[in-house]
């Protein structure tokens, strides 16, 4: 059934609500890639078997990931009238006892992580679950969750990502309806501009401005593209956003397409994300069936559809011009800008093209639904909204965290992450992946905003935070990232192709104890030139791990070289 009116949308909300709180117990297994990797699939299969054979009145479903990777596999239990309870570190063998408890209207105490009596889905919908189970800690009292603010991940781990009704039930597609039926494209762009939203791919370019440039470009055809080529080592924010809540991305793109006057969109996604691809394809099908993609969306004159383009495993294809070359079937090599993608002759098939990161698109529905004023209050001046970070490496509580921009590194690493794993002392973090830099613990007051990170010699990047402890050799870390960047360099320009290779050779020599003071000087001069003269962002930022470790951990280099 196509959704054409407010009442159609309300009808779908009721259908979805009956799936989230069905009147019978509901068991939901966290099955994003992270959950599946630690046995979530087997738990789901076992639960399914028990429910089938016993012909039990329990609704079993899949959800995405709420972000607490350390505690996975996670299983949500919803018993009518009771709070939603998240069980953690569940394994296959627990399935029988979980079901027995559920049938008795209870949950396993020793597996309970926390309870959620009510959940604010931010887009004007608060899901009431119920009361009771007071002995189980509240969600807001769990240290990992306490300092977070869920805006982008508002539905992640709570709704079934493979069911459009559940997304609609918690407030989904209202923003798109509102934009398409009640706002002019200009008003949508104004709203995004006023929100202060900046590109979440890493560079922080004002999204509203990019949209305006694309809208103003004179051309018979334009495109929008979602950059889902997330490739930084240790970064998986976008993966979880797509796996846990794919409709949020689609809704963001519908609103953007309407604002920019575009009828065709693409999601460029890396082949290494099979589950995200599968869920997106499913979600696109669902959205078409519901009349939210395709011709005459919501019964209006606006038409827009999305195709998926799958990458072939090159990090550099996250760079805008290489990404477009890759979609066009050419080798993924960047070309000099201008022309930019938004220029005539510069975008996909030569047409003006707007490219935004997954998380940027995901910010759009909530901005339209709640207004730019609401959004701009979150975060810091010039750095509004929240940002999802993947907190990984030698940190105690590994996971995906969402905090307002401007939150200090120390809050993220110590308050949320509980410091080093196995009680080791934290030494530094690497932000922004191979393009970022290492920030030492003495600078952990640094607020996570675009400018402060740049001042510290690093970048926001897409949001990876890799924690290093006292046992980490920082020169080795620099080598790791240079090795990555060398392998991912497209090979077009000399400083990146040749310069990074020699940087790697020098680091290998130094780490082998064969380096000299002169090698250190050569290293410093070389990375300076790579940064200053490379053609694209990959080469320009690839030296950051060396530059920052040289600046903050010079003693570790000195200890390795002969005088």
């Amino acid at each position, binding site marked *: 059934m196509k959704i054409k009116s407010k009442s159609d949308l309300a009808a779908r909300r009721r259908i979805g609500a009956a799936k989230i709180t069905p009147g019978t117990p509901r068991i939901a297994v966290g099955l994003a890639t992270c959950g599946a990797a630690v046995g979530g699939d087997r738990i789901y299969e076992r639960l399914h078997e028990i429910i089938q054979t016993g012909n039990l009145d329990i609704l079993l479903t899949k959800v995405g990931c709420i972000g607490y990777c350390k505690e996975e596999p996670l299983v949500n239990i919803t018993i009518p009238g009771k709070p939603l309870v998240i069980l953690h570190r569940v394994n296959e063998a627990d399935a029988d006892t979980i079901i027995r408890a559920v049938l008795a209207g209870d949950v396993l105490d020793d597996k309970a992580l926390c309870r959620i009596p009510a959940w604010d889905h931010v887009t004007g919908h608060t899901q009431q679950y119920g009361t009771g189970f007071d002995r189980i800690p509240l969600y807001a009292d769990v240290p990992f969750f306490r300092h977070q603010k869920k805006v982008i991940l508002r539905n992640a781990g709570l709704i079934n990502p493979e069911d459009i009704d559940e997304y609609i039930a918690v407030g989904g597609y209202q923003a798109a309806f509102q934009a398409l039926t009640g706002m002019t494209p200009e008003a949508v762009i104004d709203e995004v501009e006023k929100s202060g939203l900046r590109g979440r791919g890493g560079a922080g370019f004002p999204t509203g401005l990019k949209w305006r440039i694309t809208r103003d470009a004179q051309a018979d055809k334009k495109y929008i593209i979602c950059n889902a080529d997330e490739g930084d080592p240790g970064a998986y924010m976008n993966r979880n956003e797509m796996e846990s809540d794919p409709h949020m991305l689609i809704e963001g793109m519908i609103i953007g397409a309407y604002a920019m006057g575009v009828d065709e969109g693409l999601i460029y996604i890396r082949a290494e994300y099979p589950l995200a691809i599968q869920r997106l394809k499913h979600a696109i099908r669902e959205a078409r069936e519901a009349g939210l993609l395709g011709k005459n969306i919501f019964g209006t004159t606006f038409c827009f559809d999305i195709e998926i383009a799958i990458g072939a495993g090159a990090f550099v294809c996250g760079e805008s011009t290489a990404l477009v070359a890759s979609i066009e079937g050419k080798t993924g090599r960047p070309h000099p800008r201008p022309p*930019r993608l938004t220029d005539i*002759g510069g975008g996909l098939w030569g047409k003006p093209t707007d490219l935004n990161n997954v998380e940027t698109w995901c910010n759009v529905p909530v901005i339209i639904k709640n207004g730019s004023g609401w959004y701009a209050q979150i975060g810091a001046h010039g750095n509004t909204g929240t940002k999802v970070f993947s907190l990984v490496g030698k940190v105690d509580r590994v996971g995906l965290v969402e905090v307002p921009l401007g939150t200090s590194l120390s809050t993220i690493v110590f308050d949320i992450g509980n410091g080093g794993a196995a009680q080791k002392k934290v030494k530094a973090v690497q932000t922004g992946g191979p393009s970022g830099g290492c920030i030492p613990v003495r600078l952990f007051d640094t607020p996570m905003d675009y400018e402060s990170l740049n001042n510290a010699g690093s970048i926001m990047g897409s949001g990876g935070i890799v924690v290093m402890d006292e046992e980490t050799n920082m020169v080795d870390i620099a080598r790791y990232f240079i090795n990555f960047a060398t392998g991912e360099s497209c*090979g077009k*320009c*000399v*400083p990146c*192709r*040749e*310069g990074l290779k020699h940087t790697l050779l020098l680091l290998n020599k130094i780490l082998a104890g064969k380096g000299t003071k002169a090698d250190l000087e050569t290293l410093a*001069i070389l990375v300076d030139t790579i940064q200053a003269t490379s053609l694209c962002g990959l080469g320009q930022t690839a030296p950051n791990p060396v530059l920052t470790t040289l600046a903050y951990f010079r003693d570790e280099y000195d200890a390795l070289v002969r005088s």
Partner: protein
Amino acid sequence: MMPVGSTGMDAAKKPVTVIINGRRCRADAGERILSVAIREKIAIPHLCYEASLDPYGACRLCLVEVIKRGKNEMTTSCTLWATEGLDVVTDTPDIVKHRNILFELYLAQAPKSEIIKKMAAQYGVTKTRFFKKVNPADPLGNACILCGLCVRVCDEIMGAGAITFVNRGPYTVVNTPFSEVTRDCLGCGACAKVCPTGAIRIDDLEGERVMTSWSGTRVPLVQCRACGRFFAPQALAAKTLARLTPALAGDVAALCPECRGQQIAEREIRAKTGGAGNHA
């Protein structure tokens, strides 16, 4: 590819004035600054630029600094479009510093290239601190610097696409697909003609051109029906003849340039003198 936006097609060919090292130079709007500098005989080193090809920006040697609101911004002049009043300088201390490192990288990458050695020496760089790569089996004689001119001319100008980049990053090389003999090669030799380091080897044998650097691809040559000399690849000759009128094509087919000139001259003279050629 045409420049766009504020320097776009509408403005192309409009005369503008740019300033290079304080000197005012005439240029067409949208012209590349390196092209202006070459015309004005302002020395800017470059390896991957060719006026007839799309801007590429890979060799990074043609760095200039653009003076914008009192601040200098480094960029490559082969990808910088001329706009009214654009103010650039060459050879600043920063440019020299970075360019010297780039020359050192080139010396390590193409240790056998005399042209690179000579060019680097002109800018005072005679040795490199970096590890020199020498591969005795390199079909390009350790002289290729991957500027891409051969690949681009083969594709963009000749439309053959017989060679391309293989692998990526530091493993990149230029070769035919799967390093095998290719039937796409016209044997035109444009690749060797544009190669800035003379790395590409082509050998003309009796009746055959051997693209030694391109997996030994062999291209048959056309024999001149007048003098018997082998002068052009057959595929290229056929392509060229197809663009002429049948009468003209018949006239010049299988004639080397010298014999063609001679025959046409003789015919013209005969026509003017009523058939009696008199050279006296």
